[in-house]
């Protein structure tokens, strides 16, 4: 009798223990893959608070947890999310939103008009004297709650493109510590974050839209670039975005490699206020001396999209291909230099952030190419924080290779910075025609006229050789063949909800 009871206890223990072990190892090699995935990201989150997080690498993860009144779909269109309906006023001075029925926060409470007002007011910093968390929100005059389901956003100055800024996350007013406890409405719920180690997400079963396929997502932070490929091949991660061509070539056969673009404008940005780049002829000479195809061949196996202005193809109707403005022509480049008084060439510095190898590689190729026209480029690598404060904010530089990305899919996200007095005009671009064309684009509410004006801006940038435009870099994404469904977005976003196990239909 006693023995039997003992056996019984033993049995229970064994079952309990085995339950524990499978709990720990789910997601490993066999079978269980369908319910979990481990993805790798190169840098840690900088905050869980969607309004305070600024790093692109953080936002692309938070995209899965939070949603705005509207969100971007994979074609770059703005689609209703927390709101089910948007009605902008004719002149673009106010936007009225009808909240979607049945949208719940991850804590189970329903999204109310008050939560929407709280979130937008928080980002506009309308209650205090601090700067708005979302710069564009300085244009918000008021957020009015019409009734339980209706909210109106009134603007100071009419802006027909303002909707793109309303992808700003809606968070519950009741959550006093959004930096510790991430509560949103997205397809994934936040579970935990261990700095420098991992972030854990779980499927939101109550999601209003198309639910995620995979239940458990573990996001591992792999800061060391050299260990990414080992981690992929070794099976400790199943997914990694933004791999280089070199890393892709080292992958084992277990991966599907998706090829897309990074959606940024990589260029040799020139300080237009500094000698010798204050002379348009010198800037054009550099453009003629640059062989973009050779850069692509040398740095990324020929992958990447050459571009000729501050606009990349994902912008659709706003994009015009200007990449042939300056075909390689050494004689012309030399003639232009001679005209500008630099017959014997000159020496200049290219400042590059040391943590972005693709930009360093590009700078190295440029240095070689400029030797042909007698121009010597010296490459100076600086830390990212130094780059931000000295080059970007302080404008203390001659030239720099960097990729400029867009925060929203509206043309101003890329073009506003070249207006003469723009606060982020780090290249000190100064062109009256440009300013006029840009002002015209902002002012008009007619879409065709707007698009034409933006295109004119792009053309001016190309013609005046504001920068040596290079490419929209190629992006490679590796996904273990156990999964499928990876979707590119025209913005910096990783949509985990679309990834599904390969065996599911």
């Amino acid at each position: 009798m006693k023995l039997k009871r003992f056996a019984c206890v033993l049995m229970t223990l064994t079952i309990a223990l085995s339950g524990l072990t499978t709990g720990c190892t789910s997601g490993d090699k066999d079978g269980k893959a369908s319910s979990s995935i481990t993805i790798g990201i190169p840098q840690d989150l900088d905050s869980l608070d969607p309004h305070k997080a600024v790093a692109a690498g953080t936002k692309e993860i938070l995209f899965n947890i939070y949603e705005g009144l509207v969100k971007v779909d994979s074609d770059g269109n703005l689609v209703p999310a927390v709101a089910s309906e948007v009605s902008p006023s004719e002149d673009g001075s106010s936007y009225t939103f009808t909240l979607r029925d049945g949208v719940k926060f991850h804590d189970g409470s329903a999204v109310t008009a008050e939560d929407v007002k709280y979130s937008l007011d928080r980002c506009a910093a309308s209650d205090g004297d601090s700067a708005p968390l979302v710069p564009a929100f300085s244009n918000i005059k008021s957020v009015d709650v019409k009734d339980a389901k209706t909210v109106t956003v009134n603007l100071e100055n009419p802006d027909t493109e303002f909707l793109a800024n309303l992808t700003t996350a809606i968070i519950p007013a009741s959550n006093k510590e959004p930096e510790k406890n991430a509560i949103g409405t997205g397809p994934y719920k936040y579970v935990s974050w261990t700095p420098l180690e991992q972030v854990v997400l779980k499927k939101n079963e109550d999601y209003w839209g198309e639910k995620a396929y995979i239940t458990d997502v573990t996001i591992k932070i792999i800061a060391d670039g050299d260990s990414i490929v080992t981690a992929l091949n070794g099976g400790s991660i199943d997914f990694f975005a933004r791999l280089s061509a070199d890393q892709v070539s080292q992958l084992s056969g277990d991966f599907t490699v998706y090829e897309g673009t990074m959606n940024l404008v990589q260029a040799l940005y020139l300080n237009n206020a500094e000698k010798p780049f204050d002379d348009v002829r010198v800037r054009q000479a550099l453009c003629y001396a640059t062989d973009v195809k050779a850069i692509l061949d040398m740095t990324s196996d020929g992958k990447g999209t050459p571009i000729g202005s501050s606009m990349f193809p994902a912008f659709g109707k706003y994009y015009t291909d200007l990449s042939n403005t300056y075909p390689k022509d050494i004689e012309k480049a030399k003639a232009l230099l001679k005209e500008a008084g630099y017959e014997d060439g000159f020496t200049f510095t290219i400042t590059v952030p040391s943590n972005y190898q693709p930009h360093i590689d590009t700078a190295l190729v440029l240095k070689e190419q400029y030797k042909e026209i007698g121009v010597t480029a010296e490459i100076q690598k600086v830390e990212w924080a130094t780059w931000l404060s000295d080059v970007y904010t302080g404008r203390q530089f001659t030239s720099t290779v960097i990729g400029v990305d867009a925060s929203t899919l509206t043309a101003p996200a890329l073009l506003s910075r070249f207006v003469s007095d723009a606060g982020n005009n780090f290249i000190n671009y100064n062109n009256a025609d440009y300013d006029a064309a840009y002002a015209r684009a902002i002012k008009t509410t007619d879409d065709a006229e707007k698009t034409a004006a933006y295109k004119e801006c792009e053309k001016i940038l190309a013609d005046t050789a504001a920068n040596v435009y290079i490419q929209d870099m190629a992006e490679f994404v590796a996904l273990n063949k156990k999964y499928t469904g990876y979707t590119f977005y025209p913005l910096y976003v990783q949509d985990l909800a679309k990834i599904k196990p390969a065996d599911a239909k």
Partner: protein
Amino acid sequence: MRDVIRKLASMILTLLIVSFLVFLAFDLIPGDPAIAKLGTQATPEQVASLRAEWGLDRPFLIRYFDWLFSFVRGDMGYSYHFDRAVTELLSGKILITVTLVIMAFVMIVSVSIPMGIFAARHQGGALDKSIMVSNQLLMAIPPFFSGILITFLFGVGLSFFKPGSFVSYTQNFGGFLFYMIFPALAVAIPKIAMCVKLLRSSILEQWPMDYVRTAYSRGNRTMQVLYRHVLRNAMIPVVTFLGMTLADMVAGSIIIEKVFNIPGIGQILIKCIEYRDYPTVEAVVMLIAFLVVFVNFMVDIIYRILDPRMRQSS
């Protein structure tokens, strides 16, 4: 007793100087925490408002003393980069680095002391010679290189562990300890080699001394002479070395953590310097400085236990 107080006072002074220097360094190097945090999309107004929120707009000395008083009261401040309290951030990481250091230290002590004694006792023998030769070789290997070799051999070659896939102790403590064996080994190998060499020569130095002859003449056997008399004296330089090693490993963990992708305080330190997150950097540096100073203090105390003459003289 007075001696202990004097030592404590110098410990505190050292820490104060270190903290000030770190603060000063952050003021001198280019880069601004608010700009680093907000990145390329920031407007000047946002930067100004964040600087005000963090109190960066105040004069240097006021910021320093404000930080110092909070620190003394146990408030390490707020991590800019990780958006959470520094104490909360570090508490999870210290265990990782401490485990690494302790594991390496146990390896060093448990391997090098018996091996050193063995080599000394069989001085000139074939084994002693081969130990000495391989020592010479291993001593020259920097930990990051032994780390790469170990990753290659045990990780890639023998598949004992998955390179770069750190196991969190909160998920699987056994797996965590197992993973840590390899970085600990990488740190320990060169130190073991040095320690063996030191102990061997230290024992051999003691052997011709008069007290050894006296000990023999009183009827002690070799083993008794060795363990009761010689080793006690021979250990003094070894203890100093081990103390330095311990401090050195805490500071040196930065490199090995990078090689093995271990999210310990070393990695935090690197990240936070990159992002000019100086409250966190200060806290980590103070922690390392404290350990170094504390270990030195402990070494002094162990001297006194090992060698009664030290107690007399002071």
